[in-house]
């Protein structure tokens, strides 16, 4: 069977303009900004508590308008990656 993606309620977003700008955009679309992703500048980790935690489909709703915001350079809903301890 082809592998089926499992979508989470976490997003990676690239926004220039710093943490403040990221916070503003997060709240505009109902996300919580969980902060910068490691040491990747301008990359932020967003979480949306009203989106189902695990889903077989990329969910749509007002939160997905963030994809169209001109201040957002790039956004990606996070998919579960099967990882195995060796």
């Amino acid at each position, binding site marked *: 069977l082809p592998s089926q993606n*499992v979508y989470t309620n976490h997003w990676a977003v690239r926004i220039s303009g710093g943490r403040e700008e990221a916070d503003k955009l997060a709240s505009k679309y109902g996300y919580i900004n969980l902060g910068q*992703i490691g040491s990747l500048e301008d990359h932020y*980790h967003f979480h949306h508590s009203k989106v189902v935690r695990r889903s077989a489909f990329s969910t749509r709703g007002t939160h997905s308008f963030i994809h169209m915001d001109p201040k957002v350079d790039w956004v990606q809903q996070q998919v579960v990656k099967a990882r195995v301890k060796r």
Partner: protein
Amino acid sequence: HTRNDLNFVHFNDPKWSGMWYIHCGDRSSRCRSEMNILAAWQRGYTGKNVVVTILDDGIERNHPDLAQNYDQLASYDVNGNDHDPTPRYDSSNENKHGTRCAGEVAAVANNSHCIVGIAYNARIGGIRMLDGDVTDVVEAKSLGIRPDYIDIYSASWGPDDDGKTVDGPGPLAKQAFEQGIKKGRKGLGSIFVWASGNGGREGDHCSCDGYTNSIYTISVSSTTENGNKPWYLEVCSSTLATTYSSGEFYDRKIVTTDLRQRCTDGHTGTSVSAPMVAGVIALALEANPLITWRDVQHLLVKTSRPAHLKANDWKTNAAGHKVSHLYGFGLVDAEAMVVEAKKWRSVPSQHTCTRISDRRTRYIRPDQYLNASISSSGCAEQADQSVVYLEHVVVRVLIVHPRRGDLQINLISPSGTRSQLLAKRLLDNSNEGFRNWEFMTVHCWGEKAEGQWTLEIFDSPSQHRNPEVLGKLKEWTLILHGTAVHPYHSHTSHHSRSRMLEIPSPSRDPKAHEPQQEITEEEEEEYDGPCRTECGDQGCDGPNADHCLNCVHFSLRSAKTGRTCVSQCPLGYYGDVEARRCRRCFRGCETCVGRASNQCLSCRRGLYLHADHSSCVNECATGYFADDVQRQCAKCHENCLKCVRDSDRCTACNDGYSLAGMTCVPECADGTFFNLEEMKCIICHHSCATCTGPGKEECIQCAKDFLQQEWKCVPACTEGYYPGEAAGLPQKMCRKCEENCLSCQGPGVTCSRCREGYNLVSRTCIANATCNNADEVFCEMVKSNRLCEKKLFRQFCCRTCLMTG
């Protein structure tokens, strides 16, 4: 087999004698200490001031073998989004993996507990990231935690090793790797160590794992005690080095720390090999903290050896390196690593040369080889991309194919080295092909890049396929990484330069030689040609700077040793303006303003400038650290008493402060702990007298009137426990009653209440259903043999016989 070396070092850790991969434990038996860890220790390297973290399911930070080396600043809980990477405990001990790996790196030595880590004085942290949904964000966050503080990241996980998965880091994790090697360790590059896969039995190939296959990770495989291929091991061309690990039941295993403060010698697979190499690299970093991420890979290539490892594909590449698809360059050698690291000069900068094939689709016909070649100059025409000497070679392919597992791919270098980029994978039925998948080989390391590279693809159908559907190679790209100059020979110029600085010799100035060929013998008697511009108003008796009769600026050296004119004094001298002479600085000064010991401005290699005294010293005073880049003693952070490598990497603190990892934080009063997020002392849970965090399970000592039970402080012992003395502790401890006993008065047979299904017989709990048909004769036998007095036989008819009198 190496010398029996037990007498050199002995530790009192109970499993020390079983650590066969470190020392020869028994004079009469064979031993395997080819990893030369003991020898590296004997040279004084134990991982001091090196920070390692384990990316895994957490780390038991209060494990007695880890607590002393545990580093909170090298730790984080990505799953829980806090600073505590303690694993989640469950009945199956599912989250033991990180703790097991951590012990192999930095278990404390000589503490009478469990084992000794390979870098037993290194700092060890854990990043808890596998106990939840793993996403690209989770991986990128984990790989980028404190890159200036953490030296080595060790990971023993990856995509499934089921023989049918092809997967690797997502875009964010890829960026995190790139950021790490570019900016981590203050520009020297983070070191990522990765366990190659465990899918040997499934016919998996580690080229299908984008993590071990990355040029940024050091991919490590395993061998058994006897040098055989373990059943779990995957072959591939990106493996760099190997360590010992478990094998068949008759092979000895690796011992390490385990969850719930225990030790284990269970099966370890490749997972233990990554932390073993991380430990060895920690020793090398202690020997030379300035080596870069690429230096570490060069060191492994140079020092790892085939030893007694058995493989039928050992070959010597054109650069003279022995390499195998099972073991890379062979077994790691800790002693060779520290010895080489100590004298290592960084390799020249990394260049990358990329060549893309033409976009002509080539059909891959079953049972036939498809050869596609690219001719490369190593980008000789572009100086910033020029690769003459190879390091990693990457091949990116776009292949469509009806059954991916039927493909085998080889790469043949211009020198004729053939590396197998992919072997047949019987379980891989996917029709997805390889969409810009990158294969990597280290087998051409050190070879020349220029010439014809051939990609060889073979399709051998392992089951019936539609003969009309052919595989296609749509495009392939050859990415050569390496250096424009020889990575080691180029050091000669460095060495001669440093010699030149020590003994300045004007004759080494190439300009001074330029006109020499034009001089004829008769000109020696009376010279009327032009003088060097450095010559003064008295002119010269020859064309060179040492022919001047006086100088415009400074004269260097004496008439006896060959005086010459220079515009600026060389290193090791200062310009005496009045006398127009270059005079020697004090011994050890590289530049100075006078000849006194306290007039130095910079120091020679190996010495450090003490800014307060303007003098050069071998070792920096307390409160300062040796900055190897600036060659000066720089001040530690104001709260540090001692520090290493950076002002904020403290190893001892001023009064009123204590170490948290390598940071000095204010000492908190009893009943409080220092919170790193809020940077202040916060009250412990009311049951704790001292603690490491706010939870009731984070007590170090219990408050008055509380007893320690398991890892908590409780007002009274719960069911199944009795209060007992604890050696060395002021407060009492709750100890477990005898098995199946709900309450007891003390140790041994003192039970007063039993668990359901058990009955109290002679103050011990006996299962209800035992022996309910015992007759008198049988009971007489039980009684005459006094079976009820023996613990082993207590369950045996005692209750029934007692009831029947």
